[in-house]
């Protein structure tokens, strides 16, 4: 049984936008803007044990002109801020941004004279990852969330219901 039987008429009607976004979400090219330890964790995400190529996002580019996903990983100081903004502006549309870790998302515990309190003060952010640093699973979850946002199927600001201890117990027994 082939596709011919499913689509007896021989064609499939869809929206171009839908197909394009389907392509986009499985071929994200991340640009790592790593300024701290979160960037080290990102190496784990890229490497074989966790392997973001399973989500189509393994082609890490070190030029913003070749990337469509900016991953900001680490503390951004005021001095670093204009550099980050410039890099974001150098990326071609469509583009997305993930703020990885507490520092990129909010300044983290660096509530001081030198640190930008979250990169959303200067560039738009699609997905925030909490953690110091986040687990690789969280980064993959963020990529899945971003894929949902790109395809328009996800609720961008929804979070999965928390698994509470009793439920874990139930599944374990």
């Amino acid at each position, binding site marked *: 049984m082939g596709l011919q039987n499913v689509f007896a008429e021989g064609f499939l009607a869809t929206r171009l936008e839908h197909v394009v976004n389907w392509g986009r979400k499985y071929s994200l090219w991340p640009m790592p803007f790593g300024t701290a330890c979160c960037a080290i964790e990102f190496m784990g995400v890229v490497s074989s044990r966790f392997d973001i190529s399973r989500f189509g996002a393994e082609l890490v580019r070190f030029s913003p002109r070749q990337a469509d996903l900016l991953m900001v990983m680490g503390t951004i100081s005021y001095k670093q801020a204009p550099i980050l903004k410039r890099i974001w502006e150098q990326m071609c549309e469509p583009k997305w941004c993930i703020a990885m870790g507490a520092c990129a998302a909010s300044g983290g515990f660096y*509530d*001081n004279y030198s640190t930008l309190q979250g990169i959303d003060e200067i560039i738009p952010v699609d997905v925030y990852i909490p953690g110091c640093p986040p687990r690789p699973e969280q980064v993959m979850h963020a990529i899945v969330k971003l894929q949902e946002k790109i395809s328009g199927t996800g609720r961008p600001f929804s979070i999965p219901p928390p698994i509470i201890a009793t439920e874990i117990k139930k599944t374990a027994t």
Partner: protein
Amino acid sequence: MAKSVVEQLRQRFGNALLETADWRGDEVAVIRREELVSICRWLKETPELALNFLMDICGVDYPERSQRFEVVYHCYSLATGRRIRLKVRVSESDPVVPTVTGVWIGADWFERECYDLFGIKFAGHPNLKRLLTYEEFEGHALRRDYPRNKRQKIPTPDPLIS
């Protein structure tokens, strides 16, 4: 063991020493600002002392003192392994210390850092610009009265090549 560095300093620059301390070989001398450069040069160039390595320059803010700021010079001798700490006190209204870049060239960035974070000026410094923060930064971040939650204007980048 030879005489302590503080002891030798007192013999040579008795009038310039305001306070001294020697606690378990940890020698400190508070000196007059006017004599700073000549003392530093003497410490470095006297062969038996040879304090040829300026390890760091720190600023300290004591808001309750009339001489509010203190600049601390940590000197070390690569030849003898001895150390001495020199302190210079300045007031908020006249926070100027002569530069020691003529003695130790490595003082350049230490003094810039101290100027950046405490606002202490180093007279005669060849390039007294902020080092860690940036030109548009308002205030001096390590002063005790710097507001903890103050947010700065996001800067324009300083051109590295101009």
